[in-house]
């Protein structure tokens, strides 16, 4: 179950489409080949907390962010797509449970 932060609807997974790792910064022209390779292909692929993008495809159609654990499938929270980093309150909830985790 995910709650879309754009329209507030809570729905099952089938209503959403996953969009992969979030907060990947696009590299500009003049970047090195290594940077460009990392931007295009390298992913964190963590066994644990993962910050990712989802789209409410069969609802409001908007993109948003979700923090989810890839081992337990627990969802820690969803937040707007218009930001470069996860909000502090969700990060706090996660660090309460997993003290080692930090967003980078």
């Amino acid at each position, binding site marked *: 179950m995910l709650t879309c932060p754009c329209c507030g609807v809570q729905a099952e*997974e*089938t209503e959403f*489409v*996953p969009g*992969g*790792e979030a907060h990947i910064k696009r590299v500009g022209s003049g970047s090195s*080949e*290594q940077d*460009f*390779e*990392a931007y*295009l*292909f*390298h*992913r*964190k*692929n*963590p*066994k644990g907390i*993962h910050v*990712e993008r989802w789209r409410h495809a069969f609802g409001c159609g908007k993109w948003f962010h979700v923090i*989810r654990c*890839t*081992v*337990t*499938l627990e969802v820690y929270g969803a937040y707007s797509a218009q930001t470069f980093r996860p909000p502090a309150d969700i990060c706090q909830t996660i660090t309460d449970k997993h003290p080692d985790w930090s967003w980078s």
Partner: protein
Amino acid sequence: MRRMTRYSVFAVVRKAFRHHVGWERAWNAPEPKKKYEVIIIGAGGHGLATAYYLGKNFGIRNVAVLEKGWLGGGNTGRNTTIIRSNYLQDASAAIYERARSLYEELSQDLNYNVMFSPRGVMMLAQTQHEIRGYKRTAHANALQGVETEFIDPLRVKELCPIIHISGPRYPILGALWQPRGGTARHDAVAWGYARACSDMGMDVIQQCAVTGIRQESGKVVGVDTSRGSIDCSKLGIVVAGHSGVLAEMAGFRLPVESVALQALVSEPIKPCMDVVVMANTVHGYMSQSDKGELVIGGGADGYINYTQRGSFQHIEETVRALIETFPIISRLRMLRQWGGIVDMTGDRSPILSRTPIEDIFINCGWGTGGFKAIPGSGWGFAELIAKGVSPLCDAFSLNRFREGRFIDESVAAGVAH
């Protein structure tokens, strides 16, 4: 080193007279030594095959295969056992066809019955686009020396009478037919390789999780494990879904994402199909096992998942699609369902490569189609570890992502493998 008794019909008869008492263990369970020449992490099919061909083709027998869980308990025991090599690109066709042809003689080679059954694999064309795609693949296969042909719907019906070829939504318009493809007993492949490795004096060490990779001046010197630290000169990482975790230990990143792929089997029924059928448009593939169960493979999740179980809707989708193609299965009950963690690369082709760290080699990214490649992958990867170069693996290097030399199979082969 005492060699294992060979299995044969005479051995079975002999043991039968002794009430089957005294069969020896199929492989040893040794304690780890202090140092090995080569350590392979991951005792699945690919890892064990690598160790086997290191010993057989290159005489490197001071090898340990470390396994976190039990032998062949990852994706080797979780796939749908389909073996085929009808790939479009030359590099893929070469490695998969090597694998398929090795499968043909694997039982004799390993002295272990892997039950390879070349019953034929057909990939259904259900859209105009697929017809064009498969015809192109058939032509490419002809040039590569892989025996495939494009067949018409009537021939499909003849080969697999239970198919409903004029379905309302996706009628069968033809199929890509590989008569020498088929299935094998998946556990037996891992067990057979493990036994053969053990026979050569290699150590297959189960329940030994790698917790760290030790390096000195950019070169690997050993691994830390749950059963102590072990030194090695060369390290091969062959851990499928957990490749990213191991790569992080070693300090590099991979162009890989791990997702859950699911499969399920029905209750056993009388023989009703003697070919493997894959329907890529609707994401479902099916074959009948020797026990009579229909083995069904489904779609993968779109998000990263390490749970070894997938979403329910994919099963629903797969079964819905298959019922349309095979109306007779609509009343069957499903016996069990499982998921495996597959490592998907950007171009859906595997990685068999050196890594940024000297003497660490990685074999991963087989995604949804690793089982069929086990002998070929082991053959090539062993050559890569032993010699540092391998013609079979060249195209599958990590550098291809930086250099843009993708092996773009996803267009031709579809996501279902």
